Structures are given as C-alpha cells and as structure tokens.
C-alpha cells in the first residue's frame, strides 16, 4: 500500500468514526453498572451510573430544577438550560468563548471561589452556592466592583467584562485590600483582548475595602 493511502487509512478520527456509524453504536455503550435515565439524581443510589438526571442548582440564591446529561457543563445550563417548569434559565452573563478553561469569560463563583463554568460539569455544581455576574448587584444597587468598573471605564468591547467582574469580586472576597501584584495574580485567569488591563486594575483598587 502506498504511504499516502496507508496514512489516510489509519487517520480516521474517533469522532468521525462515531458520526459515520450513527447513533446506534453510541446508544449501545452501556455503563458497567446500573444505568439510570431521567431519574432524579437524589433518587439514584450512591454509586449508580447516571446518564442523565434532574438536578437542583442554587444560582444567585434561587433554586432551579433542570434536567441535564452527565456531560452537560455548568456553563451550558446557565446560558441555555431550561428548568423543569419550561422556563429558560437565561443567565447569559457568563460567556462561552474558548470553552477550554483558558480565557476566563465564563468565570462564576462556586461557594465564593472563582471557577470556569465551561470546565465544570453541571452535576458537580449540585449542593453548591453558585453566583454569576447577574447575582452580584442587590436590586438597583451595583456591587462595588461593578461601580468601580463604570467609574474607571474598565472595558472596551465589554465581552470579557462579566468574567473579570466575577474574578475581581472573588479576589476581594479572599483579600479585601490586594496589592497591584496580588490583583494581577488574582485576575491572571481572565483575558482581555482589547488590553484594558490598567483600567481594570485601577477599578479593583478602587473597589478594595468595599466588599
């Protein structure tokens, strides 16, 4: 067999292969122990294999019941999830950008700590206090970090801003008065392609001591 043909012959990816053989094969991939579909996670015995389940998430102090697959990320639920009452969750402040835990656009707080929602499974968010950028303001009273971002004009296109604001709030939760170096480290998991960093750092400095 010519080298070129051989290469093509062995270069079928698993994704394309699975697409090619259709869904039958995928559906037949049974789990090694009991497979539960469409059960409430709470009803499943600990140790059972769960393919999909209705889970309860506490987001910005409000409880949501939502059916998810095991592979559904927290970010997908926040942005595109539909609760069991048929309502869109519609918390689109966390942005889907890199989807690989690198850019910080999807940053949310899990029990007060900053986390990439794109790299967390929704099932792992059960029982946690989740806070998105929508949950930072108290009614019409903006969070000190939000006030400071406006004051310092700490954004250009604004697409990264929700992630930066959540990371800044999480940083100030842990360290009420960070130095400039600590601010840079605290926000090092967020990327701003417009390069507004100096204004963002100024905003966090202004919000220091107010959280």
């Amino acid at each position, binding site marked *: 067999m010519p080298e070129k043909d051989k290469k093509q012959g062995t270069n079928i990816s698993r994704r394309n292969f699975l697409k090619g053989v259709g869904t039958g094969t995928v559906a037949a991939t049974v789990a090694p122990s009991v497979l539960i579909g469409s059960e409430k996670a709470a009803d499943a015995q600990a140790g059972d294999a769960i393919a999909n389940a209705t889970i309860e998430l506490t987001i910005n102090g409000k409880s949501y019941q939502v059916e998810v697959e095991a592979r559904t990320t927290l970010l997908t639920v926040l942005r595109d999830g539909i609760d069991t009452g048929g309502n869109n969750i519609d918390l689109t402040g966390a942005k889907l950008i890199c989807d690989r835990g690198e850019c910080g656009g999807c940053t949310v707080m899990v029990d007060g700590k900053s*986390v990439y929602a794109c790299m967390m*499974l929704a*099932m792992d968010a059960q029982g946690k206090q989740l806070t998105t950028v929508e949950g930072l303001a108290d009614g019409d009273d903006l969070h000190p970090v939000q006030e400071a971002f406006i004051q310092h004009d700490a954004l250009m296109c604004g697409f990264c801003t929700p992630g930066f604001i959540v990371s800044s709030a999480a940083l100030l939760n842990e360290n009420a008065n960070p130095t400039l170096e600590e601010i840079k480290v605290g926000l090092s998991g967020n990327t701003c392609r417009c390069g507004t960093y100096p204004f963002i750092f100024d905003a966090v400095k202004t919000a220091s001591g107010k959280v």
Partner: protein
Amino acid sequence: MEKFSYVNATSLEQVTSLLSESGWGEVMLIAGGTDLLAELKEYIETPKTLVNLKTLPGMDSIEADASGLKIGALATVADIAMHPTIQHHYTVLSQAAGSVATPQIRNVGTLGGNLCQRPRCWYYRDESTDCLKKGGDICYAVDGLSKYHAILGGDPVYIVHPSDLAPALIALGASVKIVGPEGEKTMSLEEFFTLPAANPFRENVLEPNEIVVEVSVPAPKPNTKSFYLKAREKGAPDFALSSVAGVFEMDGKTCKTASIVLGGVAPAPWRSKEAEAAVTGKMIDESVSQQAGTDAVKDAEPLNDNMYKVTLTRNLVSRAAMMAAS
C-alpha cells in the same frame, strides 16, 4: 464531548472495582476535571463512564506535623499553595503550586489530577493526529514543530511532563500511596513516573485499575533552602518551558546535600544527579553554580526548535544554586 454516564464514588474498593471492568479509557476518573474535560471536548478520550472521586470522604486533607506532610489526592492546588506550613517549610512546593495555571483552575484542580495530567503536546492534543503516543507510528515532534518538546529522555516520544507539583515533590523526597484491587502500596514519587522508552503510551506506572490516593513528604532537614524557578513564554499563566525545583541543605554557603529536579524538559520530571553532584559538599560560588547548570544539560539532545531550552535550563539551574548560597 461524547455521552458518558457518571458514577459518584462511594469507596476506593468500588472505584478500583469499576476500573477493573475494562482497560484504559473506558472508565475514567474525574476530580477537578480541568484536564480531563479538555481531553473529552477534543475527543482525545471518549470514556463510557466517569467516576466522580469528589464524593470520597477525607481525601482532600493536608496534614502537617514534625515528621512531614500528608496530602490527600483531592486537595486542591490552591489549598496546597496557600497552606501556611507549606509556605514556611516546603517553599518549593508552595511556589510550584502557586505557579500552576490560573486561580480558577487552582481552585478546582487537585494534587492527584496534577500528577496524572496528560501531556500538552500539540500533536497529542489534536484529534486528527494519530501520533505514537496514541498508538500511531511516529512522534511528529521529531521532524515537525518541536518548540515545546523534550530535550532530555525523549526517545521515542518527545512530550514533556506538564506538572509543576511533581518536580517540587520529588525534590522534597515525596512518596505516593496507590490503591488497587489488591490493596495499597507506596513508592517514591520519582519511581512513579516513567519514560517513553519503558512505555510510550503512559507517563507513570499506574495500572488501569489503580488510583493515586495520597502523597507524603518528609520534613526538610534544618537549614534547608528550597525554590521553584519556572520559565514561561510570557508573564501570564502558562506551562513551564523549563523549570527547576531545588532543595538544598546548607551550612553557610556550603551545600551539604542537594536535590535538583527539572520540569518541562523531559517526558517525566527529570532528576539531575549531575547538577546535584556539582554542588554537593562544595562552597557554592559563581563557578560552582555555573558548573551545576552546565552539568545539568550535558546529555541534552534538542530537536529542531528547542535548542533554547538547553541554555534556559542551564541558567535556571545555576540561578537556583546561587540562590541557595545567598
């Protein structure tokens, strides 16, 4: 991601039993998930079942006493970086943990996951590239783009091990506890990692049905200085181009014992016995430290694009030695 089912672990016996039902890749373990989910999203791995380890009780503890540290595999990288005793007495480990990725990843990423993370090689991470590490015929880094690849111990797979915690822990003399279906065993962390010449498909000696549960670190001797020096391509978070974990037992400027482990330059954390020999028993000055750097890379075999790593690593080792004497 392909569909998978999800099991909340109830005991280590259950985990090893589930893992024993198949070989590699069918049943996989998830803790922080920051490395695994990226592999799933790229279809590098397509497991049928994920076993969630976070439901195992007590495996995220960090215990420190006069004899040393015991760190559970589920302890987060952030908890290790911020632990007061580790900051004071195990500086190299605290510095290494603080240099891992970003706050968001350190908040969920775990010790066990950091040690068992897969390589960052762009050929390995590309779904459509059937490279030697994934059962193909060749390591594309040899004739391809090799800027971030190995200069030591590569043959036949030139990945570098991406862990920052591993070099620091090995330099501190850590051991790792592993649980399998037959019970538990403990081995030195240095022996835990393997080179591609022994097994091109894996980076450590874990069997498909074994799991890392704990790392133990002996207390450093008095007058020990330790550092983690990490060179990155940019100031922002990144994997190491080259890193040096150095643990030096000093008597003034004289080095009584030294442990020097390199990261980012070999498929496993690379203990440099040559650099250790160059400083042990010597009063460290400019010429001794430069000799240590030169000796650390004397066996380096760079590829087309990573000659710079030889110079970088030489200078990092020299700098670590000078820091020990200052």
